[in-house]
């Protein structure tokens, strides 16, 4: 049970946090735009985008071990 859908258990937690963060940011920015509070919406968008991008980079690339069969041809 170490991996489900090619993700390890702690990666699942990380992605879940990322999705929640993105959903909250989307709600905040949309409601701010609808409320004609453009400055708050843009600042919120900028801050949220920075956090989400950084967290996504950690989840996708940081310290991830190279997996055999994906990065190079298997040896005969």
């Amino acid at each position: 049970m170490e991996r489900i859908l090619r993700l390890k258990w702690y990666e699942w937690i990380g992605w879940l946090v990322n999705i929640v963060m993105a959903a909250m940011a989307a709600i905040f920015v949309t409601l701010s735009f609808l409320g004609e509070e453009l400055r708050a919406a843009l600042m919120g968008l900028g801050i949220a985008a920075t956090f989400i991008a950084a967290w996504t980079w950690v989840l996708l690339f940081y310290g991830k071990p190279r997996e055999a069969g994906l990065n190079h041809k298997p040896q005969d």
Partner: protein
Amino acid sequence: MPETSKERKRVIIILGGSLAFIALWGLMLIPWGNKESGAYLTQGEVYQAGSPDQVFNALMVPEYTGPTDKTFVYKGICNEDIRVPLEAPVNQVKRVINDRRSQSEEIKTLARSLGADIVGICELNPKWKFSGVPLNHKYAIAVGEALPYSFCREQKDDVKAMISTKSALDFYRQGGKIALFLADTIREMGYPARAHYESWSQVLTVPVTVDAGLGEVGRNSLLITPEYGPRCRFAIVTTDLPLETDKKTKSSGITEFCEICDRCVTTCPAKAIPAGGPTVTRGVVKWQLDLDKCFKYWYQGSNAWSRCMVCMTACPWNKADNVLHKVGSFLASRSPFSRWVILKVDGILGYGEKVDTTPIIRTSSK
């Protein structure tokens, strides 16, 4: 289990970041460190002013002549004058009240249909009456109208700022209109009632609104409501009509928020709002506004509009009444940590910017 040190570091960062996120929201959502009650706090004997005239005279405004007309006049459908008096005889046929709760709901619905945005009912505390008035009503109904948010944002345009200031002044009269109609209806039901607004008031408005559970008093001495912040104007109706009161059981975090926020202090052009903690003034625990400085700045004479809704505009509780800010108000009511975070985020999002306080010179000055 992770095999390399880099992979171990990856696990620590992902788990640490996720836990920090969960802990942050946990600390924001779990209620702690709030006061038990958001009621008006008193210590010792409360000093009561004799009348509103005494209060106005103390402010030394030479143009103030005191209330003269005690009748509200509005135009009917055929342009006829319809007069609603401040005091009138009570209907001799008394309506029987069996269910106080439904009676209270009926009164609140009536107030809302007359234009009130928030309504609260409390028992009238004799401390909040002016000392020289013969008022013995048991209940007080507080009705509040909220200024539109667009009027309470910073107006960089002079004309818009002037319209906002004029509208703010007119709102006192609008609240009075609701109170007069409400009192008139209650008298028709066979119970004594009186409207209290502007200089015609025999009770102190803000403490009554706190007792009615509508909000808490902020550092800027305005009543701050969770729904509309400081931009409400209130009028009171006192009556003997049997009503169920609204119970104020716990603090909504507004006073505690003011303890860590000094935005109105730094923005006030008259330097009338005190920094630091609340003090006991005439028996009441509150932040005591320097009324002389406040009123003299606000009233610029007949030659200028003061643009002074600054403490309202700058207040972090002054937000549009939408879901987003309802969530913000909810979070600010949870704990000292959540209030600190909300205040910082509010500033980062650009709400705490400096407000223009230059008076607007009237072109058509008398």
